[in-house]
Each structure stands twice: as structure tokens, then as C-alpha cells.
């Protein structure tokens, strides 16, 4: 019985990944995108190059800020959805998830309309006299973070919703009967119990943001370089698949390390909750 699923896994997941890792340790040869030899040269080059280390830093900064923005927007939304009456709840959930159905490209152009120097946001702020010159909201990291957080918000909301919906309403009643005002109930009871979902959503959005390509390309102009973009250049323009694979490898290891670290820190905090 194990044969078929195992074969499926090897063919679809393991084989391509192994190939990628293999390529990362080779060098390009004349007329070929990667060669037969085994070498650490790609990794040495990446980790000693200021450009690529800067790119790694930018990628992580965008990932982290996008995750935090999505959390700041998604957490209140998830809590609100939880309190909403059933019919309204399904409507709000649908509206929250609906953007997934729209192409990321379309949404990126939508943000351009809103965020550009003569866009809706800057025009409004200038007309209100709050700023003299347009804020630079696009074709920089700010624009990429705004766009990425928006694209990934549904994942955050769904992850948090998954855990807040399992919280027994009687717990909130109990806290209220003991004298806790509504806000106090949220901070003392709901948020601690929603932590697993908050953590899952944050990790998920971070991973997706770090690996995203279309949004950084469109909303970063040509001015923001992230690791996936750098890898893409190696594959498509420079035709140095070996170096591109090594870039992907660095991204993969860095993301895994971050996620595991986050997980460990959080596990310790969640250990108490797990006892329930």
C-alpha cells in the first residue's frame, strides 16, 4: 500500500528538489546550464557577496513586515468575524477570501492606481493639506509590503479563525461573570487561546511572502531586488542554472531555519496550552 504514495512523493516532490540541490553544487559549463562537477563555489560566492547578502536581508525584511502587517489587519478581522451573527459571518468570510479569486497581477495594478505619486492616496492626502509632496508608497519596499500583505491577508485570517472558532464561548462568559470588561476578556482569554492560530498564520504568511515573485516585481518596480527575483534572473537571463539553484538553496535553508527557530520559541510558550 505504501508503494504508490511513496513513488508519487518521490516523483513529484523529492526528485525535483534533489535535482535543484544537485544543480546548486555544480558550475556552469560551455553550452550547458549546469555541469557535472561538485563545487561549493556558488555558495561561497553568494555568502561573500554584499549584493546577495543585501538581497537576502531585503527579502526577509519584506517577509517579516508583510507578516506583521497581515497580522495587524487579520487579527481584529478574525476576532470580528467570530463575534458576527452567522449570516453576516459567512458574508464577511467570503469578502475576505474573495481576493484570492482575482489574479495577483490585477491586484498589483490596482495598488499602483492607489499608491502612485498621483494616485488616490497621495491626491487625497495632498488635497487635505496633510502633505506637501507625494509620499513614496510604490516602487520601493513599502509598496511591496503593502501589496504582499494584502495578497496574503486571507491566509492569515483563515489561520487565526481556525483557532479562535474552537474557543468555548462559555470561557468569555465566565471571565465576564468574574468581573472582566470586554477588552480584558479579549486580552486575558481570547488572545492567549488564539496563539496557535496567530503563530500558524504568521509563519505561513512569512514563508509565502519570502517566496513571492509577482508582487515584488510589479510593486517594487525594478528598484527592489528579492532573492526569488535574483534566482529568476539566473534561470531566465543569465542561464546560469547552477547559480540560480544555489540562490534557491540559500533561501530554502534560511526560511527553514527561521521557521524552526520561531516554532521552538513558540512551542515553549504553547507548552502550557497543550496540556488542555
Amino acid at each position, binding site marked *: 500500500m505504501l508503494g504508490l504514495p511513496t513513488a508519487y512523493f518521490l516523483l513529484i516532490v523529492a526528485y525535483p528538489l534533489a535535482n535543484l540541490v544537485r544543480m546548486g553544487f555544480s558550475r556552469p559549463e560551455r553550452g550547458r546550464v549546469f555541469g557535472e562537477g561538485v563545487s561549493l563555489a556558488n555558495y561561497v560566492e553568494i555568502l561573500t557577496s554584499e549584493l546577495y547578502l543585501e538581497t537576502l536581508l531585503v527579502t526577509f525584511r519584506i517577509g517579516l513586515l508583510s507578516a506583521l502587517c497581515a497580522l495587524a489587519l487579520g487579527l481584529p478581522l478574525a476576532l470580528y468575524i467570530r463575534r458576527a451573527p452567522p449570516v453576516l459571518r459567512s458574508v464577511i468570510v467570503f469578502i475576505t477570501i474573495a481576493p484570492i479569486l482575482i489574479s495577483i497581477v490585477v491586484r498589483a495594478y490596482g495598488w499602483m492606481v492607489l499608491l502612485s505619486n498621483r494616485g488616490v492616496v497621495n491626491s487625497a492626502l495632498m488635497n487635505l493639506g496633510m502633505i506637501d509632496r507625494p509620499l513614496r508608497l510604490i516602487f520601493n519596499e513599502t509598496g511591496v509590503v503593502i501589496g504582499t500583505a494584502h495578497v496574503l491577508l486571507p491566509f492569515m485570517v483563515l489561520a487565526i479563525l481556525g483557532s479562535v472558532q474552537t474557543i*468555548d464561548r*462559555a*470561557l468569555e*462568559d*465566565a*471571565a*465576564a*461573570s*468574574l*468581573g*472582566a*470588561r*470586554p477588552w*480584558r476578556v479579549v486580552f*486575558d*482569554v481570547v488572545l*492567549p*487561546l488564539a496563539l496557535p492560530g496567530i503563530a500558524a498564520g504568521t509563519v505561513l504568511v512569512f514563508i509565502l511572502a519570502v517566496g513571492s515573485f509577482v508582487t515584488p516585481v510589479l510593486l517594487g518596480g525594478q528598484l527592489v531586488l528579492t532573492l526569488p527575483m535574483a534566482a529568476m534572473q539566473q534561470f531566465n537571463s543569465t542561464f546560469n542554472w547552477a547559480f540560480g539553484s544555489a540562490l534557491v538553496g540559500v533561501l530554502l535553508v534560511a526560511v527553514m531555519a527561521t521557521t524552526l527557530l520561531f516554532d521552538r520559541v513558540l512551542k515553549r510558550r504553547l507548552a*502550557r*496550552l497543550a*496540556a*488542555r
Partner: protein
Amino acid sequence: MAADLLVQGVTRRFGEQLAVDRVDLAVGQGEFLGLLGPSGCGKTTLLRMIAGFLVPDSGRIICAGQDITTLPPFARNLGVVFQNYALFPHMTAAENVGYGLKVRGMARAEIVTRVKAALDRVNLAHAADRLPGQLSGGMQQRVALARAMVIEPRILLLDEPLSALDKNLREEMQVELRLLQQRVGITTVFVTHDQEEAMTLSDRIAVMQAGRVMQLGTPEEVYRRPISRFVATFLGTTNLLEGKAARVAGNTVTVALEGGAMVEASAPVPPTPGSPVQLAVRPESILLRSTPEGVPGTVEDVLFQGHRLIALFRTDSGQELRSYMPPSGWRPARGDRAWASWPAAEAGLIQA
């Protein structure tokens, strides 16, 4: 006894459904009132309105002289114990008990002292640092009780607090709960669907059906002298005998049973003479004898249960009766002629 909690004409609908229908209750200082009824009778809805989790559509709730009808729950200072305890899973037993004191802004040292005393009172001092998930059902129950009482609430509200426990533990906790309530002397309202539990614990029972209080009285009154068919059957096995009110003198009614036998019964609200009535008599109150005294009939079967006999009896007018008899004394046998009788105080008069 001064009324500590007054419920006046309280009504609550859920959409079309009338959950609680014009309920009036007065609970005395230190009294233990049981709200008893089948699921969906409105007892929990009523409790939730007293606790402040729901607001009545009409009517008033007055606690210690203050109208609390629309006061939010956090401002009511009532202790609530929930059906599944609703202990905070991320807090230890001690943190759970101390939570109500913490939100009141009490000093840490004072909280520690009070929490310790509260846990001692329910014999859980050794479990203070455990999480609810590491406690047995009975221990969780006691933590919930300690948490509700440590804030020194004006009233204690219990929503089926024992229903999640197994039978032996439940009986043990019933006694413990009653003793604790008596010792502290706190006014308590208790919701249950278990008639035995209600009778064991309550000073008075309000039997509810379809949002209304059908009968309010001491456990003995509602058990021995039910005033409606619902109350009679809900509180246990009963015999219902058809008859007519023949004579009415004050609260004493002489009932002419089908078949002609005349028996006496008392009714809080006397029926008009001549109107059809039913008598509700518990099987343990019916005595079968071989001497012609009472309602004549035939023994149809006798079942031996060790501590008692169950005699199935049919009156000459065709009504079936069930009698629980001690296994000592006269033992009827199948086919015997016998006469059924019961003390007048053991018959509940039900008006159609």
C-alpha cells in the same frame, strides 16, 4: 426571609420561540432554589438572564434591592458555575481562582491568601499549580466552584454543574455542594434536568415547562402533591386516577373516583365542585391490603426487586395502578383480590 433575588414577569424570545414566558420568582436570603425541567424548558435561558449574558425582552430582575435587568455581567458580582466548568485552559487552578480578584485590582499578596483559602475550602490546595487539563472532572468542578465563590458574589448561579460527572462522583459532589452552600449561607440558583438532584439539593424547586414555572414549592410538596400532570410525571413514576370533585371544604376536596370510591385530597387552589380532576399518587404511597378498605381491584402481577415489590394492580373500574411495597408484611400474589389506599396528604390534585 427577605427576598435576595426577584424575577418579575421576565420574558425572552428567540425569534418566534418563546423561551421564557412571564416568570416570577422570589429567592430568599441564603435559599437554595432549583430550576428543574426538561431540556428546552427555558431554565438555562432564565439563569443566563439572571447572570446578565442575556437581556430579557420584558420584565425585571432585582438583586439585593437593585434593578440589574440590563446591567452587564461584569458589573453584577454574581458567581457562575458553568455546565462544563469553563475553566481557563491556559491558567493553573490557582490562576483560575484568582482571576476574578485580579480583574478587581486586588493586591497580589491578598490574592494569594484568598486563593489559598478558597482552594483549601474545596480540598484542592495540593492541585493549585495544575492546569485544568491535568485535573479530573470532580476536581475541575471544585475549582470552578472556588473560582465563583472567591469573589464573594451576592448570588451563586449553577448551570447543571454536576451533569458531566459520573454517578458516584455526582452524588458525592451533591452532598459537598449542599454543605458548602449551607456553610457559606449564599443565595443559590441551580439549574438541573435531574429531578433527584433537584430534590436532594434544593430548599425549593421551580418546575419549568415551555418557558413557564409550573409549580414552585419544597421538594416534598412538588413530589408528593403535584398540581399538574406534567409535574407529576416529570418528578418520577406516578399513578394518575380519574375522578370528579364531589365536595369542596376549604382546601380539602373529596374526590369521587371512577368506580365510586370516595377519597380526600388537599389542593392549594380548590376546584369547583363537580369538575373533573385527577389524583396523582406515587407508587410508594399506595398500600395494597387484603381487607376491604379503599379502592377495590385485582392484583395482576407482582415483581420482586430485592428491596421492594412492584405490584401491578387493576381497579374494578379498569384503572391501572402501580404500588411499591416492602417485601415484608402481606405479599399479594397474581390474581388476588385487594384494596388500594393511600394517606390523603400523599395525593396531588390535578385540575383539568
